[in-house]
């Protein structure tokens, strides 16, 4: 049998975050955040997860002028406002 997976995110499912969360859409350029929850249609959520944006992932916000430009797992993603409004994140300190 292959070794059991270490699933760090599962332990966090029950722990309610005591730090503040906000919508990804509210984050400013240059900030960094961790994804807490994704609330959008199943199709889009699937695509986001396949692109590497899932709960527990860290994202850098690059640009917010047009749609939102993010860096996720080393890839640049442009996300429309309808989607970023549905993603809840936990902001971290701004990028150095």
């Amino acid at each position: 049998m292959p070794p059991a997976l270490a699933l760090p995110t599962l332990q966090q499912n029950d722990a309610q975050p005591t730090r503040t969360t906000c919508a990804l859409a509210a984050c400013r350029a240059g900030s960094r955040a961790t994804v807490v929850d994704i609330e959008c249609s199943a199709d889009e959520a699937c695509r986001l997860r396949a692109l590497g944006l899932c709960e527990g992932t860290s994202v850098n916000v690059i640009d917010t002028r047009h749609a939102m430009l993010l860096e996720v797992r080393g890839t640049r993603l442009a996300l429309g406002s309808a989607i970023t409004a549905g993603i809840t994140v936990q902001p971290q300190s701004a990028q150095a």
Partner: protein
Amino acid sequence: MTSLQPPTSTDSQRAAQRRGGAGGERASLRVAIIGNPNTGKTTLFNALTGLRQRVGNFAGVTVERVEGNFRGPDGQPVAVLDLPGSYSLSAGSPDEQIALEVLLGRDKDRWRPDVVLVVINAMHLDRNLFLASQVMELGVPVVVALNQFDVAEAEGVAIDVPELIHELGVPVVPTVAKRGEGIEPLKRALFIAATLPAPTRRFALPAAADTALASLRDCLTADGLSPIAADMESLRVLGMSRTDAHLAQVPGLADAVIEASDALRIAGFVPARFESEVRYAWISEVVGKTVTTRVNTGRSLSDRIDAIALHRFYGPALFLLVMVLVFQAVFSWATPMMDGIEWLIGTAGKAIGSQMPAGDLRSLIVDGVFAGVGSVLVFLPQIAILFTAIGVLEHSGYMARAAYLMDRVMRKVGLHGKSFIPMLSGYACAVPGIMATRTIEDPKDRLATIMVVPLMSCSARLPVYTLLIGAFVPPIALVPGVTLQGATMLFMYLLGTAVALGIAAIFKRTLLKGPVRPMILELPPFRWPSPRSLAVSVVQRCQLFVRRAGTVILSLSIVLWAMATYPKATVDATLPVAAQQEQQLEHSVLGHVGKAIEPLVRPLGYDWKIGVSIAASFAAREVFVSTMGTIYGVGDASTDDEALQARLKRERNAVTGKPAYTPLIAIGLMVFYVFALMCMSTIAVTVREAGGGRLGWSWAALQFGYMLVLAYGAAWIVYAGGKALGFAG
């Protein structure tokens, strides 16, 4: 995992399924290629197959199906199918659905691969492994191509390939597709993999989750999936919405999903995220053991280019520059080549014709066949240039930036950011523009774009505008440098554009109504496109055009020739040749068609002569001018505009004695041509790009129909409205 999985189809079944491969021989091996977009998958496919490719459509959908073949290490013929780029098998789009069906052997063609080649971008191992991990659980042998290995090395990403092979349990071959490196080892790996047992899941689910999914797995195996594929599917369907059509297709699946979801929740998991959590947890472990990244201190070249490309001011400026360049290339640079082709065909036709006795056969060959072939080949320079430009923009990565910048504007009319390039090229020619819509993933956005591209005033409308403006619009200066003639021309262009955007908005709210897909776009790093791969793609597009559209255009050219030539009229041989042609035309089938539709066009102010020209111009808009030239006996009007213009001004209506053509009629006629789809080449291409077969023809018919209604209505409004307002009719 030590137990051998039984093969999912017997050897005799597989042998029975094999069809002819390279050069008509039976394929020794069938390979399906899958991978994320932007991994160089197509470059790898092109490197394997060269020009030995065939492009078609998957049955019943607009997804393109590209199949090719190559020779294995010992010369064995191998058939390879390029599946659409997918981020996962989670079936969010028709592309991904088709990929899954093919891999499970459930597509309509029953093309089950012997080996699946998963193309991974070495720079983005973690994200790419998501798809790979799903594919590795389908019960088919897998080989991984670790592509763009050179870029990874340059960026300081070191991958321990033997360790990766150990972790994945499948052969992994580093490749640099655009330089053809790693191709031979890859071919050997494919043959070796076909003899190995199929890979299995490389991680174990937590026990509680495993139990929770048991009934779901049973439901899927009852539907005919192998145990291992049912394992994969059970994870996948957890993420689907309740109303997904797929869930309804398998008996009891929807309920089983609900049951499993409830059980998972009790065990402390969130069903919708479960698959991504377990897969990414495994991926993190694999990446941790195999990848070491040298810490990069500076910004990459790609980031520096993006600083300009996405800049608040320079971004749109650069975009404008690129668009002007593309437009200029398609519009102007193609012209000398197009003239060259026309000259070549014309000369060849005359040379052949001079060897033949005068008569119908010569006329058929020269005026029918050669003219028809010429009208097909003349598109090739524009198609080649446009697709080269698009290829460079796509493969370099700039296209994604362009789509990002244009998205907000296009979204207002319900179109996609990527609709911009097809519409822009429609100003030159709708044919390559419509072919270019395949870069738009969403089928509804793509169809909406296809429906309106022909409204952008193409270069073929120019001769019509030039003739009518030259004859009937006075050359008065409005402001220094701008004449009324120029302004009228510009007005026609703007009219087409404005209506195109409006019609697109209407389509997206009615027939092609769909949720306006919010943008999820990957901006890949900038890279140099591979010239060889680009050349292969462009040549293939041209071949496709000649084979498909070409045959339609040629046949219709011959039909129109016949309609103009028969029945034979007794011409007065004392008249000049041009006048003889005029007589012949009047008595031919085409002439009768013109007379028959005269009542229809009279409300627009036209007579049977314009009617014939309009009918003939169905082949191509430029034919309007040459037919008018024939009817008015001025011979080849395309070289002698002034003669035809003068003739039109003098023409008197036989009944009323008043001028037959007035500025009002001319404007109305131009407006008619702004909107009417008088181009069988466009129709031929629409048929294909809208899905081929009945589906394609239905959309093409709709396109022709609505544009004709628009054209007639607008021309009538201009004419009747103008008369009502007191302009001379």
